[in-house]
């Protein structure tokens, strides 16, 4: 770790100003990701702007949407009555992530901004374009068991690691950000990026912009939802594959559907075509299997992750089954 400055701020504006003043400054929220990366010299900010004193922890209904402050803790959101009642998919996805201790520290904004867990990104002795553009992608021909099958580039095949974001992309959330030029809103699906030629950029948040909240429109997905996470141990491991499934079923007919996948791409992977294939159909295994096949179109595997081509659709089917028949 290098020596760095540390300042505390208590308004979004002060935070944005503080970050704008220094090159290579960073916000710090729960610190559960950033501090680890600093210890390993993967991120080396010269200044940390602590945002924990900014009053952005609220979770509330505002008109026809639920607004969650960027500093709301992962555990607080997961346990919120409002979220459990109206956004159970979000609650499930949060509880599938990390551990109780980490969820008690981690914030919504930090969760969205967490960096990939790619083995090559994490080891400064290894090549990684995301960590240092131009070094090459270590994973492309390396140990890529956990890596992406959708939207990859020659430069990067890393996956976005968050569970929460898979539910948020499915639920059509909107990100609210405050920057030097004021506030703006970014649809969740456009927040994270594909790697393309600039894998060093995880998302479209601009430098010096602070996430202040996420907004989730009211929806009918309060009952038939399931977040299914397949991982290499029963808890405390990142997703090999995860699926967020939300159905609105009436008389055994699917009126509306949302489907997104984790562990498969550089961004939370929304499966819009598969959703279309579900709507209007009976909630049956056949329907689910058909949607899963559509979902997997265009998938491309690498040496160690070919199993995802089979585990992916299977997990989609199972998540939909679980959603259709909640316990």
């Amino acid at each position: 770790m290098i020596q760095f400055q540390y300042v505390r701020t208590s308004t979004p504006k002060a935070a944005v100003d503080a970050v704008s003043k220094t090159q290579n400054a960073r916000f710090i929220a729960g610190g559960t990701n950033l501090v680890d990366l600093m210890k390993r010299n993967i991120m080396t900010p010269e200044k940390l702007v602590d945002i924990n004193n900014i009053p952005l922890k609220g979770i509330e209904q505002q008109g026809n949407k639920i607004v969650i402050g960027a500093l709301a803790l992962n555990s607080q959101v997961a346990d919120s009555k409002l979220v459990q009642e109206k956004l159970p998919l979000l609650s499930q996805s949060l509880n599938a992530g990390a551990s109780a201790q980490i969820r008690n520290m981690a914030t919504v904004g930090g969760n969205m901004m967490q960096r990939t867990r790619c083995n090559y990104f994490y080891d400064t002795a290894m090549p990684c374009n995301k960590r240092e553009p131009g070094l090459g992608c270590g994973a492309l021909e390396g140990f890529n068991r956990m890596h992406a099958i959708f939207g990859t580039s020659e430069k990067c095949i890393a996956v976005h690691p968050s569970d929460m974001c898979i539910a948020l992309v499915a639920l059509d959330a909107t990100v609210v950000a405050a920057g030097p030029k004021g506030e703006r809103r970014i649809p969740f699906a456009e927040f994270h990026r594909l790697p393309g030629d600039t894998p060093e950029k995880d998302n479209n948040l601009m430098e010096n912009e602070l996430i202040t909240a996420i907004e989730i429109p009211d929806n009918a997905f309060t009952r038939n939802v399931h977040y299914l996470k397949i991982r290499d141990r029963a808890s405390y491991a990142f997703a090999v594959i995860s699926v967020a499934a939300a159905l609105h079923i009436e008389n055994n007919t699917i009126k509306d559907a949302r489907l997104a996948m984790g562990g498969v791409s550089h961004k939370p992977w929304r499966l819009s075509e598969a959703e279309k294939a579900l709507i209007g159909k009976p909630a049956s295994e056949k329907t689910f299997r058909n949607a899963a096949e559509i979902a997997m179109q265009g998938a491309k595997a690498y040496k160690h992750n070919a199993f995802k081509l089979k585990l992916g659709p299977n997990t989609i089917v199972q998540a939909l089954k679980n959603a259709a028949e909640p316990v």
Partner: protein
Amino acid sequence: MLRNPCESKEKSLNQQIMNEAFFDKKDYKSLDRVDGRLKVTGAARYSAEYQLPGLVYAVLVESKIAKGTIKSIDSRAAERAPGVLAVISHVNAIKVPGYQTSNQHPSEPPVNGQPLRAFYDNNVYYNGQPIVAVVASTLEKAQFGASLVKIQYEKEQHKTDFDANMDNAVLPAQAKKNPKSPVADYNRGDKNAFVNAPVKIDAEYVLPTEVHNPMELQAITAYWEADDRLTLYDKVQGTQPTQQHFAKEWNLPPENVKVIATFVGGAFGNGLHNWPHETAAIIAAKQVKKPVKLVLTREQMFTMVGYRPYTWQKIQMGATKDGKLVAINHESVGQTSSYEEFTESTLQQTRMMYASPNVNTRYRILKLDVSTPIWMRGPGEATGAFALESAMDEMAFSLGMDPIEFRLMNYTDSDPDKQLPWSTKYLKECYDAGKEKIGWDKRKMQPGSVRSGEWLVGYGMGTGTFGANRGAAAVRAQLDADGNLLMQCAITDIGPGTGTAMVQIASNTTGISTDKIIFQLGNSQFPKAGNQGGSSTVNSVGPAVQAACNALKEQLKTMIASKGGSNAAFASAKKEDIVFVNGQVQIAGNDSAKVDIRTLFKQNNIQKMETTQESRPDENRNKYSMYAFSMHFAEVHVHPLTGQVCVKKVVCCGDAGTIISPKTAANQMIGGATGGIGMALTESAVIDHRFGRYVTKDFAEYHVPVHADVPHIEVFFVNKPDTLADPVGSKGLGEIAIIGVAPAIANAIFNATGKRIRELPITPDKLI
């Protein structure tokens, strides 16, 4: 219906796990860990927790190439960094006297080769090798200094890929020299019996590299109290073996080297060897003339303190149609480093476990550009058991036999390898009781026949065995006028509860209540002991405790009887009948024979009574074959679509002689089963062979099982003494706790799914 059967599990307290029915009144009772309070309150001091005056910190910089030489080290920036006291490498390290002589660890079997010498020359043998130590006034300053060191290499072609290089496997040098070596080729009976066997199994098994990963990181605090006097607070499994090692390395009389390891936060074998980081800290301490603390990072634990080697095995098993084994051929190739030949007894159990008249074993090692492995819990046996017990299951299935029936059919009442009777063996008792506890009757022969909701249910079993080892050990016992007993021994306690067991043996031998007994350990200045390893502590140190207690009794008897009068009865009392009650020495059953210890000591003008007694293995070791045995059952649920595995229940039985400390013994078995779950389902250290560098080297990527992976583990013991093995009648159980668990789970998965997975770990992708 549950979404995931693992989301709800019977959790149980340790007490419930013990099957008290197996213990009769005279047996040992459950005692809470004597040092439990110290551990949970943080009062227990570990090797990294000694704040010596003037303490400074060292951080190691490792190699980033797998083979070659160091061209240059640019340490200028590091040297100028704040707080940095020294940047040490082969360029400027002081000469270590022992580097010129052969540097073998005194307690190990001779390994062919030259252990890695820290900062000796510019050779790089593997990726992750310690190259530079940066010493600074704080840990953070040392870390920052370390990040500034620039090393240039001359790279050479490396080999780390086991599969690609397997053809280069060789017979270990010790076997070449000595055909009787345990790792030499072995043949019993007809060499070619397999070929003509009516029913055959021919299969290959792979175990990836596993890393011990105890909770406590390897740590050492090295302090030169004088130019020729060295004190080490060191996380090791043997204080005296370490003392001897460093006495030799630094050309010092052993009494000038003091090694303290009062508490060790788990080790699983990685403290059975002395490693370069220890020497690095000692060199640094000498060079900066201050005590130096060095703690490895989790990542360095993967390359600096050994691991369970990647191992390929092949088993050819032949049987008659009615289930009699006629042949077992078992081959194994284990990974080792380019500079040392590490070997382990992967094939031993194949020679003795079952009554096959014809057995061939063939052990090879493969030298790669990696660090040297070291024994990891249940060392080679756990690896070997995965292959042997999987093959037994495969054969039982081919024969259409129940796996237990098949094992009973080939049960052996004497050791077919050594051709000696067993000292004791109660595996049949384990099978019988275990079957019932796991609910074996619910098992169907045909895989995939049992379901719980969507999940496939399977049952499997595996047996384990490990030598009932015993070494020489000595214990000093001191009785004070208040009737308190203090004992000391150099042995370490890496977690099994050694102090607790020894207090129980002493209490059982003397009648002194356990709260008046203290057992001190983990100091090389205490009486003799080897390593805590190979399941040999209770059987080695326990008899010395017993001997010391009995010697105290003899001394007391003589002292009391010499007074004559009513005390004369003591002269002829048997030592078993002498007991201590409330500060008095008594003869059991003789109410008039009572002597107050305080008064006695006063009369004789002494403060304390002391003795040191040594106990050694006896000639029974040549007349009997001595092994501990274990039996593990697993119930697993597997999801047919997603390949998720939930281990729903594990039942373990230990045939380990007398169980001295039921609670900590059960704790050992539970820990072993947990390690076995990791071996079966989650653990694997992966190397990217392009760089020869590990890519799964932290707790996020190297998956040790978490609570959610670990089900209700029911433990029970046969608890019948083996007094041929040693006078306390116990056989060790640290190893048998894990040996046989992984195949039990793999076999259960086969029973659930029909999928036979021969390469561990069994992750979901292998089951879809």
